[in-house]
């Protein structure tokens, strides 16, 4: 179910501006990898290169290799649509489809692939909502619009929608930054459960969060504003937060900058 990602020599551009430079790393399957770093260091851009969402941005362009269990996402003949189906994504702000019910939101990805039996669909929706710890809260109002839920519930609905298509990898771009502390806690618990089944990559601004939820942490930084962001180091989370091998990491974590 979960696959490993190997990135090597990756550059990403916005037009002629280089946003990230020469990134190589490995994301282990069935674990949580957190990306931390100051604003503008390119961690979100990098995350979006992992499921080819970067090229959706006008002018977005990528060089280098991203291997998913050995298959290059940017190889010739690769269909970005299939890539995004295999590697799901949860965004910073909860974005359920406003015109769809809760049920249809979760089923949206499945319906793309044509005909499903109603019972099959019911099963998948229930399973996904349970997987996102949302089932008990919404089971009586599946036909109500998803936009009627609270922010935290909406974000879990988006997670349910993402896992309903059974992706190999789940990317999360600051999933808790728009949420209150209690909702954040619920999502963090959920991430802990989901890593049993998926490879998870999470971008976060909150270092405590990175320390709480992740197994490995990658620190990104940029030399100066306007310069491309770089990967400084990636290691076991415990090690990054207690005894990082690069001085800049320690400075950042101890709050000396950023």
């Amino acid at each position, binding site marked *: 179910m979960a696959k490993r990602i190997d990135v090597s020599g990756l550059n990403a551009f916005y037009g002629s501006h280089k946003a990230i430079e020469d990134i190589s790393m490995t994301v282990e399957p069935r674990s949580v990898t957190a990306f931390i770093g100051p604003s503008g260091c390119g961690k979100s851009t990098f995350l979006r290169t992992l499921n080819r*969402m970067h090229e959706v941005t006008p002018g977005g362009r990528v060089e280098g290799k991203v291997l998913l269990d050995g298959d290059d996402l940017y190889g010739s003949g690769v269909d970005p649509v299939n890539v995004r189906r295999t590697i799901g994504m949860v965004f910073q702000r909860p974005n359920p489809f406003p015109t769809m019910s809760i049920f249809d939101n979760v089923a949206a990805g499945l319906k793309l692939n044509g005909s499903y039996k109603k019972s099959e669909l019911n099963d998948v929706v229930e399973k996904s909502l349970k997987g996102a710890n949302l089932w008990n809260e919404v089971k009586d109002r599946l036909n109500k619009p998803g936009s009627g839920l609270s922010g935290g519930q909406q974000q879990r609905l988006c997670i349910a929608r993402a896992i309903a298509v059974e992706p190999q990898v789940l990317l999360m771009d600051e999933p808790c930054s728009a949420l209150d502390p209690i909702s954040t806690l619920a999502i963090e618990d959920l991430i802990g459960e989901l890593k049993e089944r998926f490879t998870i990559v999470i971008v976060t601004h909150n270092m405590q969060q990175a320390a709480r939820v992740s197994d490995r942490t990658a620190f990104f930084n940029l030399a100066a504003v306007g310069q491309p962001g770089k990967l400084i180091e990636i290691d076991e989370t415990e090690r990054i937060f207690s005894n990082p091998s690069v001085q800049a990491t320690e400075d950042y974590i101890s709050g000396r900058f950023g």
Partner: protein
Amino acid sequence: MDIPTDTPPPPSHVEDAKPTTPEQKRAARGATRPGDRIFLGLSRGSGIVLLLIMAAVAAFLAYRASVALADNEGNFLTTFEWDPAGVAHDGKPYFGIAVLVFGTIVSSIIALAIAVPVAIGIALFISHYAPRKLAAPIAYVIDLLAAVPSIVYGLWGALVVAPNLTGLYSWLDDYFGWTGVFEYEGGAPRSLMTVGILLAIMILPIITNVSREVFLQVPKMHEEAALALGATRWEVIRMSVLPFGRSGIISASMLGLGRALGETIAVATVLSPNFVINASVLDYGGGTFAQNIASKFSEASEYGRDALIASGLVLFVITLLVNGAARLIIARRKEYSGANA
């Protein structure tokens, strides 16, 4: 009309306390000084003048129409003739709008049927398909299309488009003539179909522009949500863009319909009018409200003009309803589009 003194203004970012006395209300508007009072009076007066003009349009048209209708021997709604001078009725006026209702509706439906899909296509092209560098020039070209005066459309329609349509119409007659709707006897193709095609081109810009606005307003995050699920570009549009823009498309189409219903000179130039209802949309003949007024006006007596005004009143009411409905849809949409912030 009494000005909003009994209704407290809704709370805004400027005034928090609800003013109660007239002085406080004036203070809340920043109108305590003489200069301010004059300026407020002037600007509010202009708004009222605008409303009065609208009321006057309705009142004067209704008054002249009533003059005409009082003497009409025919049934205004169901008579198939337009004979206010009573040439065929012993000098008694005999006229009705049945033919005009038919012609106006048919030509507008044809125009909408052609223009709406094309306009949605172009709007999507500008908002989602065109290379970014092309999008702005294309939007500009569409604006140019809107700036061309209707008389020029009429001239072009009559002298360039219509002669080119004979082939298409005979072909339609060959294959669909059996329906009766597409029968074509030959001759100059100055029919309701030609009018519909021309109107479609003329209302294309307004439908395109309003739809494009709405499509561009679709929050990026909804589109990304669909993309991240592995949707193709078309599926993104179907899942997030079209549902979001549906009410916008409807109101855009109604604005276009309003234009098509009231278009005068282009129709008068292209159509060979004939005061009959023709089952076939390809054969010449028929008429629309606005075209009928323009064509009959110069030969009409004063009473004849009143009769034309009566038909104009009907057109006024219809376009008022269509436009009003379109605006209400837009306004309602604005209210709930911010709901899921």
